[in-house]
C-alpha cells in the first residue's frame, strides 16, 4: 500500500533534493537539545518548564526573528514555531487571525525553515516546527526532512497527522536526528497512550481540554489526571497545553507536568503590539512574567 509520506510519492517528488548539508552539525546537537532541556527542567534548576508557541510570519518573518530572539532571552525553554496554513481547523480565533496575518505577509514553510537556519546558532532553546500536514506534503516529506535538518530544527509536530498516518514521516525525520512530538488528548485511549509513548520522542504534548486552541481563565479540571495517565505509561517529558496564559497556571502545571505550553495568550500579546517599536520588549516581559 502506498502512503502519501512514502519517499518519492509527494507532489513535488520530481524536484531536485536539497543540496545543502551544512546543518549536519547542528542536527547532531539537535537530538540532544530537547532531551538536555527537559533534563535540566527535571533537575529543578530552572523552575517550571515553559514552552512558547508563536505563528511564524505574524506580523511578518523579519519581526518573527526578533520575537524568537526575545523569547530565548526571556528564558523560554522550548520554542514552537507555527507554520501558517490556510485552513487551521484545530485552532481557535486568536491563532486563526495570526495565521491570516502571516499568510498575508507571504509566509511559507520554506521561508520559515530559512529563518530558523539563520537564527539557529544564536538561540539556546530547542526549536519545534508546528504545522498542519499539507504544507509539509506539498514541499515533499523527504525534502522537508532534509531542509529541517539543515536548518537545525529539533522537533516536528504535525497537528493533523495522528499516529496511524505518521509512521513513514516519523522515520524520515528520525533518520535526520529530529524528534517527532506526538499530541495526546483527553479522548486518547490508554492503548493509544502506550503506542504514543513508544513512538514519540523529545516530549509528549498533552492537550488539557477538548476543543480548539485558546486562552482560558483556569486550567482544565481533568488536566492533572491526564498527565498522571501518561506518566503511568511513559518516562518521556510531558508538556501540557491549551488554555494557559498566566504565571500561576505555569506554576500549577509545573507541579505535575514537565512544562506548560503558552500559545494563544502569547500570540495575543504580539497581535496587540502589532507594528509598535516595543514589540520585542513586550514579548520578553510577558515571558519573564510567565516564568516568575
Amino acid at each position, binding site marked *: *500500500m*502506498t*502512503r*502519501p509520506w512514502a519517499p518519492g*510519492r509527494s*507532489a513535488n517528488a520530481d524536484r531536485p533534493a536539497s543540496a545543502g548539508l551544512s546543518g549536519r552539525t547542528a542536527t547532531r546537537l539537535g537530538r540532544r537539545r530537547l532531551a538536555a532541556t527537559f533534563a535540566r527542567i527535571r533537575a529543578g534548576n530552572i523552575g517550571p518548564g515553559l514552552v512558547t508557541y508563536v505563528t511564524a510570519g505574524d506580523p511578518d518573518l523579519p519581526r518573527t526573528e526578533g520575537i524568537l530572539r526575545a523569547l530565548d532571552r526571556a528564558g523560554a525553554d522550548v520554542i514552537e514555531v507555527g507554520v*501558517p*496554513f*490556510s*485552513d*487551521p*481547523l*484545530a485552532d*481557535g480565533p486568536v491563532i*486563526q487571525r495570526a495565521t491570516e496575518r502571516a*499568510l498575508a505577509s507571504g509566509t*511559507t*514553510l*520554506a521561508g520559515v525553515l530559512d529563518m530558523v537556519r539563520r537564527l539557529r546558532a544564536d538561540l539556546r532553546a530547542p526549536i519545534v516546527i508546528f504545522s498542519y*500536514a*499539507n*504544507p*509539509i*506534503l*506539498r*514541499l515533499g516529506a523527504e525534502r522537508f526532512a532534509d531542509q529541517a535538518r539543515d536548518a537545525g530544527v529539533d522537533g516536528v509536530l504535525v*497537528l*493533523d*497527522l*495522528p499516529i*496511524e*498516518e505518521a509512521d513513514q514521516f516519523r522515520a524520515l525525520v528520525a533518520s535526520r536526528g529530529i524528534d517527532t512530538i*506526538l*499530541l*495526546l*488528548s*483527553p*479522548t*486518547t*485511549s490508554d492503548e*493509544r497512550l502506550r503506542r504514543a509513548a513508544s513512538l514519540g520522542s523529545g516530549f509528549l504534548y498533552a*492537550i488539557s481540554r*477538548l*476543543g*480548539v486552541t485558546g486562552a482560558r481563565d483556569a486550567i482544565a479540571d481533568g488536566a492533572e489526571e491526564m498527565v498522571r495517565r501518561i506518566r503511568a505509561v511513559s518516562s518521556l517529558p510531558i508538556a501540557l497545553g491549551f488554555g494557559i496564559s498566566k504565571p500561576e497556571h505555569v506554576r500549577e502545571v509545573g507541579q505535575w507536568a514537565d512544562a506548560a505550553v503558552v500559545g494563544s495568550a502569547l500570540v495575543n500579546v504580539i497581535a496587540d503590539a502589532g507594528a509598535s517599536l516595543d514589540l520585542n520588549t513586550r514579548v520578553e516581559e510577558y515571558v519573564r512574567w510567565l516564568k516568575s
Partner: protein
Amino acid sequence: MGSDPPVFGRRDPDARGYFGAYGGRFVPETLVAPIEELTAGYLAARADAVFRDELDGLLKHYVGRPTPLYETRRLAGDLGRKGRIRILLKREDLTHTGAHQINNALGQALLAKRMGKRRVVAETGAGQHGVATATACALLGLDCCVYMGAEDMRRQALNVVRMRLLGADVRQVDAGSRTLKDAINEAMRDWVANVTDTYYLLGSALGPHPYPLMVREFQSVIGREARSQTLDQVGRLPDIVVACVGGGSNAMGIFDGFLDDKDVRLIGVEAGGERIAPGRHAARFAGGSTGVLQGTRTFILQDEAGNIELTHSISAGLDYAAVGPEHAWLRDLGRTEYAHVSDAEALEGFQTLARLEGILPALESAHAIAYTMKLVRDVADGTIILINLSGRGDKDVQSVVEALR
C-alpha cells in the same frame, strides 16, 4: 431482485480508510477516538437488519423513494438528435426536501440516534445538506446546528429560512472565502469541543474515514434504483452516466450502481467557474494536485506552499477545493472520467431544461445537463445517456436572476 449484490460492504476501503492512495484519516488527535467510535457504530449499524429496515421504511414513506426515472421528451430534439439518442433523468429533485442529500442525512441521523448522541452539527454549502439535516433532526428529535459561510447564506437565503423553520441553529461563518470549506472547518471545531454528546453529520463523500464510505453507501440507493429502472423502462443499461461533482456524493451514489458494468461510461462534471485559473473555478482534476484537506488525501486546489486556493462557482454546492477520495481512486483506475463546464454553460443548462422539460434543476445539477448538451454532439445514434438530476432549482432562482441580469 433476489440476486442483487449486497447493499453494504461491497467495496470497502482498506482498514485505514484508503481507496488506493487516497483517503485516510488526517485529523487532530482529539478526533481520533470519536472517529473510531463512529466507524464501529457505522459498521455495526449497516450489519443490523433492524437499522436497515428503519432506514428503508423512511426512504420509502418519508422521502418518497424510489424516485422516478424520467425520459426527456424535447431535450434531445432541441440538440438536433431527435429520435436518435435518449436522455434519461434520475429525479432526485423529487425527493422530500428536493435533493439527494436527504438520503445521507437520514441515514446518519438514524446512526447518531443509535449511537446515543443528542446533538448534531453539520456544514452546508448550497444549503441542501443543511436543510436535509435539519429535517432529519426534526423528525428524530435531535438538536441541530448548521454552519454556513456568509457568502453562501447570502446566495442561498431561501435555504437559511427553511433550516430555521425546521428548528436548526444556523451559524454564520466569516472565515476564508466564507463558503463550504470554511463551514466544514467550523463544524469540525465545534465537534472537537463537544465530542462526547455531538455527532458530526458530514454532507458529502469527503473527510476522514469512514465518511467517504458511509456517505457513498447511503447514496448508493440512487444507483441501485436507476440501474433497475433503466433496465425496466428502456430494456438495457445506459451507455453513459453523467453527474455533477462537488464533494461527489450524488455522483458516487449513482456511479455505484454501474461500477461493475464495464461498458457504461461514468462521467463526473466539475465546476469550471469563470475559467481554469487560480481562484476562478472549482475543477480539482483540471487545476489541482494531490494533498490533504479536512481529513482526507485527495485532489485539491492549492498553491505552491500548500495553502488551499480560493474557489469559485456559480453553484454553491460545487464551490469546494477538494474532491471525494474515491473519485480520485476510480479516476486513477480509469473507471471514471471527469470534465468541467463553466458558469455560463451551467446557466444555459439550467434554462434549457426549464424551457424544454418544465424542470428547474439545481445549479449543481445544471452542470451535468450542460455537459450532456455538449456531449450529445459526439455520440453515436442509439446512445442512451442517464443524468443524475441531483436536486431542484427553486433555491437558485435568485442567483440565476442576478446572473442573467
